């Protein structure tokens, strides 16, 4: 197949499928509006944990999870979830946002809009982490 036709097909195909899915409402991010949703998301990644508490955040796309094997955050990955422990993460405050950087090239950064109390709760776990 001539390269210019292949490139046009690929670019047009990607753009068309992206537009169609977006218009169909398939770009919505998962929200954690109940503790059970956050707990389920956490246990998908850390099934050996016993979750002791879940804090829903003012940012509905993330939650703070405390578990016996270590606290962490579960957040929306598009329509799905991802979770990481806070151990080893670094944090910085930028206005009303808390920027977290994880020691993981596959999940490098998370920006959350949080209240002072929520930021304090997350940061306190960073300090506790071994």
């Amino acid at each position: 197949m001539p390269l210019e036709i292949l490139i046009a097909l690929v670019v047009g195909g990607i753009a068309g499928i992206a537009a169609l899915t977006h218009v169909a409402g398939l770009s919505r991010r998962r929200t954690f509006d109940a503790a059970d949703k956050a707990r389920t998301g956490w246990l998908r990644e850390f099934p050996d944990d016993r979750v002791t508490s879940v804090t829903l955040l003012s940012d509905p796309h993330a939650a703070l999870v405390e578990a016996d094997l270590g606290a962490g955050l579960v957040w929306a990955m598009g329509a799905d979830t991802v979770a990481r422990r806070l151990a080893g993460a670094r944090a910085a405050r930028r206005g009303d946002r808390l920027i977290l950087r994880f020691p993981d090239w596959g999940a490098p950064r998370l920006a959350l809009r949080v209240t002072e109390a929520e930021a304090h709760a997350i940061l306190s776990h960073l300090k506790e982490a071994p």
Partner: protein
Amino acid sequence: MSATVSFPDVVQWAVPLFIAAILAELVWILWSGRGGRYETRDAVTSLIMGAGNVASGILLGFIAWGFFMALWAVTPLDLGTSWWVILLCFVLDDLRYYWVHRFGHRIRWVWASHVNHHSSQHYNLTTALRQTWTGTFTFMMVVRAPLILMGFHPAMVLFVGGLNLIYQFWIHTEAIGRMPRLFEAVMNTPSHHRVHHGRNARYLDANYAGVFIVWDKLFGTFVPEDDAEKPDYGLVQNLGTFNPIRVAFHEWVALFRDLLRPGLTLRQRLMYALGPPGWSHDGSRLTSAEIKRRALARETGAGNRPARMPAE
């Protein structure tokens, strides 16, 4: 040996078919409300990975091609290009695919390339196109060497490999339940391959087949789809990014970070590269065997919980 044999690049010619089938699956899901899930960024990432795979083939394909032609120059055998030779080549290449795929899940160096194909939490036709950019660096082209030394022309070997990939496209869907029993018994199907993409403990390291599921049955890696346990798609530890660069290279970065850790023995460094994914020198990570053992312990209530996870 003749070097003038040529076959079409069937994967490139199949691109319009891929796009049409994805649109058809998407419209079916939107119309019927069943048959799978799509998410915009996930789908776009998968499609960009597919485009990158084609681009890497154009840029780096000469390496494997040069290796194959060097083998072709030294082999005294030439089986020709009759239809039965192409058919035999297709079947033997599928056996080759089974082992390369199995290595891809059991050897971290190869997994670093293949992992991106499993990095979507969705299972639809775009997932089929979420292909590696770094396959050349796994050196798995050596597994094709026996075919060429047996007298199958390199162009034919690549042609049947392309057909194999095209076959595997349609099985990446939840829109098809099960095929007729005889078909399910012999061929790889959406049901068998859903198991392969499941991150559920019971589905890990199963169903490596490309076209013929009989290889898994023969080599003891077949696991049927259990209607009571729907596959949960993705990685044991899912990615927190849609960035295609990170999707393509994250495991290579992690691998080389481990290789270059101070204080390890040579054996430990080799195990980080050539051991199974999840191997670690201090036991702080889980291989698929350990994940299965712990899942079984949880199900049977035999508690065997880890101590607090050490920091990275």
